[in-house]
């Protein structure tokens, strides 16, 4: 199947008084129709900047896309003029923002906010747009849609507002949906409902979803494939089962190990020491090496390439090099790898 979205060697930088902050440093990934790619990583790892770049929402200056291409249905979004881009934005590519409290216009009725895109992109009449808005509200599970359309955002609770944001994003049946931590601000029960709504809609419309989150539980729930980002790069990418049951990168081990599982009662959580690097001066070699228990000499000198683990599982760590010593991931991670056999370290260098 053809890729709906293809990102090649994307670099995004911000020029500040202190110097150039390299927020995204060469990212490659693709999304197919009907597929969900989850991007996980800590704050500052560049996951939000990556999605904003896809939407052309990087404020410039200070931000700029330094290098790379973003192919959406074969067309390069980075080369498009603003006018062309605004025809795609909100129509073919839609975004669900993180904070439902601030991403709606407080002075506009909710109905008008949903209808705005429909009238602009699909040239619908007001009454048609309203009909569609009603359908959308029902789709995302808001009761009393007719009444609700006439209300302002402050009359909605957090979960309800996020549903409105999702309804707006879905209004024009987007082919690609970018969801930036859509459920982080919500309670678990509401989160579960919203995730179900998103999955249903995806099934119905066959949209591709890029789902950004730092909650690995949510990732396990929604993702087909997972990309783990650290310091502006993808350090591991693969099918969801690869990442959870056969992770290869020490950073992925750290992320998995730092979450308590409900059936384990270890004395101490595996905590990744230190904090993420300063992207003004990205470290030489493997950016994660200073925080890694498994760092070798070469990690501080040379950047690891993407090593192939299987056809759709890649990881950027020298531990996969054929000359690397075999290491065992931390115990808390091993217990998660139930059943899956541990292949010997080492793969084909790329």
């Amino acid at each position, binding site marked *: 199947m053809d890729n709906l979205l293809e990102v090649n060697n994307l670099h995004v930088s911000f020029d500040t008084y202190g110097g150039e902050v390299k927020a995204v440093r060469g990212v490659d990934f693709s999304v197919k129709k009907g597929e969900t790619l989850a991007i996980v990583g800590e704050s500052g790892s560049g996951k939000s900047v990556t999605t904003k770049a896809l939407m052309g929402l990087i404020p410039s200056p200070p931000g700029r896309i330094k290098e790379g291409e973003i192919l959406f249905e074969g067309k390069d979004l980075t080369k498009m003029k603003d006018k062309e881009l605004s025809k795609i934005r909100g129509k073919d590519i839609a975004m669900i923002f993180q904070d439902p409290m601030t991403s709606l216009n407080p002075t506009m009725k909710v109905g008008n906010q949903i209808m705005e895109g429909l009238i602009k992109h699909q040239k619908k009449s007001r009454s048609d747009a309203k009909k569609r808005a009603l359908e959308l509200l029902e789709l995302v599970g808001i009761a009393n849609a007719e009444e609700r359309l006439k209300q302002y955002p402050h009359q909605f609770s957090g979960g309800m507002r996020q549903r409105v944001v999702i309804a707006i994003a879905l209004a024009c049946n987007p082919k690609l949906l970018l969801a930036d931590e859509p459920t982080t601000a919500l*309670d678990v029960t509401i989160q579960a409902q919203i995730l179900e709504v998103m999955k249903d809609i995806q099934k119905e419309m066959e949209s591709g979803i890029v789902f950004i989150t730092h909650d690995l539980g949510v990732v*396990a729930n929604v993702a087909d494939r997972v990309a783990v980002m650290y310091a502006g790069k993808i350090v591991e990418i693969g099918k969801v089962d690869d990442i959870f049951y056969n992770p290869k990168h020490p950073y992925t081990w750290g992320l998995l190990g730092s979450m308590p*599982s409900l059936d384990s009662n270890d004395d101490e959580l595996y905590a990744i020491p230190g*904090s993420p690097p300063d992207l003004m001066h990205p470290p030489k070699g493997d950016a994660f090496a200073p925080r890694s228990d498994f760092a070798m000499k070469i990690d501080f000198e040379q950047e690891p390439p993407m090593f192939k683990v299987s056809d759709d599982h890649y990881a950027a760590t020298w531990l996969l090099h054929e000359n690397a010593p075999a290491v065992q991931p931390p115990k808390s991670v091993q217990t998660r790898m139930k059943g899956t056999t541990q292949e010997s370290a080492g793969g084909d260098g790329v």
Partner: protein
Amino acid sequence: MSKEKLLEINNLKQHFKAGRKGVIKAVDGLNFDIYKGETFGLVGESGCGKSTTGRTIIRLYDATDGEVLFNGEDVHSVKDKKELKRFNREMQMIFQDPYASLNPRMKVEDIIAEGLDVHGLASNDQERKDIVVNLLETVGLNEDHANRYPHEFSGGQRQRLGIARALAVDPSFIIADEPISALDVSIQAQVVNLLKKLQNEKGLTYLFIAHDLSMVKYISDRIGVMYFGKMVELADADDLYENPMHPYTKSLLSAIPLPDPDYERSRRRFNYDPSDHDQSEEPEFREVRPDHWVLCTTKEMEKYQQDHPGK
């Protein structure tokens, strides 16, 4: 663990006026004890009153009704300023938002030493400084950090400052109101490990308020589940997760996403419908089996006891 009560909460109520006639019953008749040296987890969705409970216990709000007994004395009946200071030394709070809970215009040293100054715990500047440095080291920071301002720190480091500030007056009881929810996953584990270490070293008692249920289970000895201002279930952490009885607890547990794709694919969600309850009488908080309390009617209690025969 001893069953010596450090804190007894009896029929605690906190009502807020809303508009001219409306009343919001944020906390509506809570009864529970916290034992010495344990971690009591309080969970529930936003708006269920868990933060209000924490804030009322430490007297940031004056309770509408009920009492909070700390070592047998009622915190809310204390009027004398001196007496109140004594309570404040024993009870400290760690706040949710490490960005908003530190005064941006104060240096770290002064933030941490504020409690020392109020209670006159340091006799001279050198002693004050020594205590601050000692506290910074306890929470994994160092001497150099004392002269900086909060904006120079990352979220995880700020939360460590919040913990150091709470520890400054050597309390025996700490209320941690969502101390990790603003932090990154990898940093959360650091802070939780730190809290556990401090508890072992100093014999602290925690009230840990959170909505991240997997972390709560990990850190807590006992857990209380709140729903609309009421406690609906209270039990040992493991018991609660293995044998949830109240339907709301079940729905909450079934909604936690776990980092396990196979489990997620077979997940069955359980929806809570308050109208399913037995309506024949007012539900009460009953001990369905030893140390496992559920808000239920007599009929429901019989049913729960049948479904979950004793240990």
